[in-house]
Structures are given as C-alpha cells and as structure tokens.
C-alpha cells in the first residue's frame, strides 16, 4: 500500500502578541489508501490546525512550512489557491464537530445536498438531470442511514438533531466520492448511541469504497477498532505513531501510557481510587516549554528532554522520546 497523503515535518507558526509561536512543530503523518488513521490529541494540540492545513483553510497570518506536504503526486504547498481548491474539492472532504453550524441555516437540506453532487456525474438533459440529482441525493441519504429521506430533504438544519445533521453532512461529504475524508471530532456533542452509529457508518464507508479517513479525536476511548493506525499529538508535537493495536497494548511513549492509564483501558484501576493523571496542565501558547513539550509534566523526564527527541522507529511503530518505556536499540 502506498501513502496517498505524505506529510513530513509540517510546522505552522502563528504571529501572536508574545511573538511567533509554533503551534505545530515538525509533525509528520502518512496515510495509506483505504486506511483509517486516528489522530489523538487534547485540546490545543493543533490537531484541527493540521486538518485545516491539509484542506487548505488557511489563514493568511499563518506561516506554513514543511519538508513535504504531498497529496498523491501533488505538492500541495506549491500549488496556487485555485488549483489547490480544485484538487481538495475533488479528492477530499471534511466533516466537523458541530454539524449544525456547517450547514446553511436558510436553505433546505435537499437543495444543499443536491448542489454537492457533481454535474459531471449526471446524464441527460436539463430536466432529466434535475430528476437524477434528486434520486442520487435520496440514495446518498439512504446510504448514511437516514430512512425518511424525503422529510429530511424538506427540512432546515435547525429542525434536525445533531446526529441527523451529522449524517447529512457525511452524505454531502461523500457525494463526490472523495479519496480522503477528514473527520474532525465528528461525535463530540453526541450521545453514545448516535456516536456509535456515526463511527460504524464511517468504518463501513472506508471498507466499501476504499476511502481513507483521518479521524481526529480527543481521547483514546473514541478510537474505533477499525482504525488501522493512530498518532498521538501533544502541543503540536508528534509523540507516537504506529499500528493502533501496538500502541494500545505496548506503548513506547510515556504520554501514550498516561493517556491509557486515565482511560477505561486501565483494567488495574482499583475502584474508588484516584484516576492517575499527568501532573500540571496543558501549557498556554505563549509558554511552550523548549525541547520535548511534554517535559515538565512527564514522569520520566530528565535533563536530556530539553532537546527535542528525534523519531525512533521500531518496525511500523515510531515515537519521539529519549526515555521510552520499553528499552530499544536506537539507531543513532
């Protein structure tokens, strides 16, 4: 399997009143075709920024540099905005945390869905095409698990629950059969039942169409079993990346371990005891530690941590730590 998305050392700098801040610090990420990749990071880790950088929602105040930001054989940073939008519009799609605000409040959902179906995929003359559009829109809604398609098409966004709205935005996102779907915390505001439905739907879409999905979540509990690979990001730095199973069972990085300890994957937790957490809080943008940004909170940190560790590689599994939980022969 080849990588369709290849990001090497992506850095995003923001101009703030306290000077330039690196919100993403040399982040690397590879995504293979048809793969579900989960990106885990707490708030402020820059995971949404990464998604925006891929999609090209770029604020002119950001400074983006990368050794590589390649989508298939296109160098995204070298393209002009028009070409870039053409490619992202054709190949990529994104769904968001609160779907309500990503739908036009004053247009019926049917019309919004219909206009996302590309003209090129419709046959026949005007009226025929128009009818085709409606049929295809209904089919899309059925595919994302909405039974009463007609009613939903005749509703405005405010008349639907968040779960249904998210399904509609997934339908809109997959209308042009994208190769990559970025799901930015798609279920945060939803109840567990709806959440599971959405996750099952995304997994099914990936399996049936060979669509790659970059799933962005806040914590390890929402990593779905279908996810093949995952990455953990802390304050804009990549902590660990590798096959999901490996990371969940044999983490190298103290951060991954801490995240596992605080979730229900921790089977050794005695009832009614305190949940083990990292000390301290996530640093603010203006006060980023130098070197490994986890340093001040890390149980294993030592003096060497003031230098940012390089990525070490054990088979498919990569991590950035001077003092991993499992001793390995490093290559340097």
């Amino acid at each position, binding site marked *: 399997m080849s990588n369709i998305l290849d990001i090497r050392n992506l850095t995003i700098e923001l101009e703030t009143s306290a000077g330039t801040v690196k919100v993403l610090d040399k982040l690397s990420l590879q995504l293979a075709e048809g793969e579900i990749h989960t990106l885990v990071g707490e708030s402020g880790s820059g995971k949404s920024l990464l998604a925006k950088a891929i999609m090209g929602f770029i604020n002119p105040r950001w400074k983006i540099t990368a050794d590589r930001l390649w989508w298939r054989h296109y160098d995204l940073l070298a393209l002009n905005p028009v070409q870039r939008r053409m490619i992202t519009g054709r190949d990529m799609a994104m769904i968001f945390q609160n779907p309500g605000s990503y739908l036009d409040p004053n247009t019926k959902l049917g019309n919004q869905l219909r206009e996302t179906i590309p003209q090129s995929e419709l046959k026949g003359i005007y009226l025929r095409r128009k009818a085709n559009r409606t049929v295809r829109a209904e089919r899309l809604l059925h595919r994302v698990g909405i039974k009463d398609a007609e009613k939903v098409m005749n509703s405005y966004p*405010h008349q639907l629950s968040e779960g249904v709205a998210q399904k509609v935005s997934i339908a809109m996102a997959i209308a042009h059969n994208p190769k990559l779907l970025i799901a930015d915390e798609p279920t945060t505001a939803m109840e567990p039942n709806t959440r599971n439905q959405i996750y099952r739907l995304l997994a099914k879409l990936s399996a049936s169409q060979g669509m790659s999905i970059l799933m962005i979540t806040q914590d390890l509990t929402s990593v779905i079993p279908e996810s093949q690979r995952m990455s953990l990001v802390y304050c804009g730095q990549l902590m660990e990346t590798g096959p999901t199973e490996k990371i969940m069972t044999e983490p190298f990085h103290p951060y991954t371990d801490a995240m596992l300890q605080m979730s229900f994957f921790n089977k050794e937790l005695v009832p009614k005891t305190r949940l083990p957490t990292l000390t301290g809080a996530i640093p603010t943008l203006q006060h980023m530690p130098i070197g490994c940004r986890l340093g001040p909170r890390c149980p294993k940190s030592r003096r060497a941590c003031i230098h940012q560790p390089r990525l070490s590689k054990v088979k498919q599994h990569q991590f950035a730590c001077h003092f991993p939980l499992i001793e390995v022969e490093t290559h340097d």
Partner: protein
Amino acid sequence: MFRYSLRRMVLLLVTLWLLTLLIFALNYWYPGDPLTNMTGIKFSDTLAYQQALVARGFDGSLLSQYFSFMAHLLQGDWGASMVTEQPVFAEIKPLLGATLELGLLAMLLAIVLGIPLGVYAAIQQRGKLDRLIMGLSLSAYSIPVFWLAQLFILLFAVKLGWSPISGQIDPLYAIDINTGSILIDIWLSDSDYRIAAFTDALNHLWVPVIVLSIMPLTMLIRIMRNAVLDVLQQNFIKAARARGLSDSTIMFRHTLPNAMQPVVRQLGLQFSVLMTNIIITEVIFNWPGLGSWLVKSIYERDFPVIQGGLLVLASIILLVNVMVDLVHAWRYPHIRKEIDAK
C-alpha cells in the same frame, strides 16, 4: 408561522388602536374647541355646529365621544379642512400617491445600487475601491437631507439647468390627477402629449429621488458590506468551499441569501427614516405629497388635516414594519425558532 403572523397582526391592530386614542386626545390638547378641531366645522356656522354636537356625541360622556369619533373615522369621514373646507379623506388619496411614488422610487434606487455596491466593497475588503465606497458613503450619510436637497437644486437646476427647480410636472400638460402618482396618471390620461409629459415628469422626478435615496443607500451599502463579511466568516461557507463548490454558487446560493437577512430587517427601519426625510424633501421641492401638505397644515393650524396626515403616515410606517417582519420570518425560518423560543 401562522401563530407568528397572527401575533404580528394583533400587535398591529393594538398599535393602530393606540394611535387612534392619541389622535383623539390631541383634539382636546390643541388650542380651540375640540369639536372644531375634530371636524373642521366652525363655531360661527351655528346650525351645522349644533348638529355635529349631537352627531359627535358631545352631549354625552368622553367615552361616547370616542366611540362616535371612531365610527366617523372608520366610515371615512375625517372632517373637513379648516382652510379649504374640503373633506380631508378625499384629499388624502392623490397626496398619498405622490408621496409613495417618490418614496418607493427612492427606496428602489437605494436597493438597486446599494446591494451590489455593498457586496462589491465586501469582496474587495480593505482594497482601494472598498475604501473609496465606504468613505463616500460615510460622508454622504453625514449630509443632512435639507442641505443636500438645496445643493442639488443649486447644481442641477440653477447652474446646469438640467432639471426644473421644483414641482411635479409642468401644469401646461394638464394631466388629470387621479392616483397622485404622476407617472401612473400620465399613463391613464388620454392626453396627446403623453410622451412629452412623461419626459417632463421624469425630469422633475430624478433630483428629489436621488436626494431621498442617499440616506437609505449609504445605510444599505454599509449594512450589506458588514453582512457579507460576516457570512463569509461562517462555518457553512468554509464547508461549502471545502466541498469544492464554485465561487459563484457559494455567492449566489449561500452568501447573498444569508447576508440579506439583516438587510431585510433594516429595510423596515430605514422606511421610517425615509418617511421623515420625505416630508422635508417634499417641502423643498414643492412636491404635492402628504409631507408638504402636513407641514403646510401645521403652519395654518389646520387641525383636521394634521390629524388625517398623522394617521396616514403613522399607519403606513406601522404597516410596512409589520410586513417586513413577516417577510423576514417567512424567508428566514431559523429566525422563527428563535422567536418561538422567546
């Protein structure tokens, strides 16, 4: 929507009722005899006065006077002018036509120019043309209408001679005033010189229309610009771009319809401002409309006319505002949810 419309209608009726109360009360607060103020019948006309005293319930309580006042009002008996002794109600129709013609044309001009200019300024945000449009609209907004009107007369009528100084049409054309709207009246008339009369009417019309449209135009430009900028920031526009929709689809299907929402709201408010300006403009241009009629009657202490003019102007403003509210709620369904939630 039905409940909301019903509520608006009830509110409209209640406001109109309060308006009649106020106008009724004014007759007692004005100097002179209340019955004369109300009907225009002079005290010296003894027989008619005695009849009116009974007919208007002035032999009974204040309540019976109000009921009889309302009964006459609803029947279209709004008294007679104390100066011309003509019935007020019959006089109002052509005046209203002339005022509405001026006001609607000015509003139309403001909409036709203001919306594209506002959108253009927003797209060119912080560009040279944006600064130019915004600068001009702010300066034009700051000019009071009475001064602007005189400047325009001085420039276009006196110096350049492109247009007559005042009036609605040259009286030589002898157009029968029927609806009051001069363009419609020429259309309806069987004069042999219809085309010439039409040109002459337009010649008279364009200066006051431009003067009147400046205020709503500059407001519309600025509201439209801010609204478009605001909508362009919204998530659903970003999402639409991410879906690969073309710029024109996003602009015409999503940005503009959403940006029009605050504009529709403002149109109702702007209409009241326009009505105030129309009174001043009509006086300056000697336009035979409600405004100049009202001002003239104030100078002449012609109370039945003041009463009728006030009633009509206030009712029009109320009606337009309620209509704008209804259109707003009908076109922007998510607003209805907010209204219901309150």
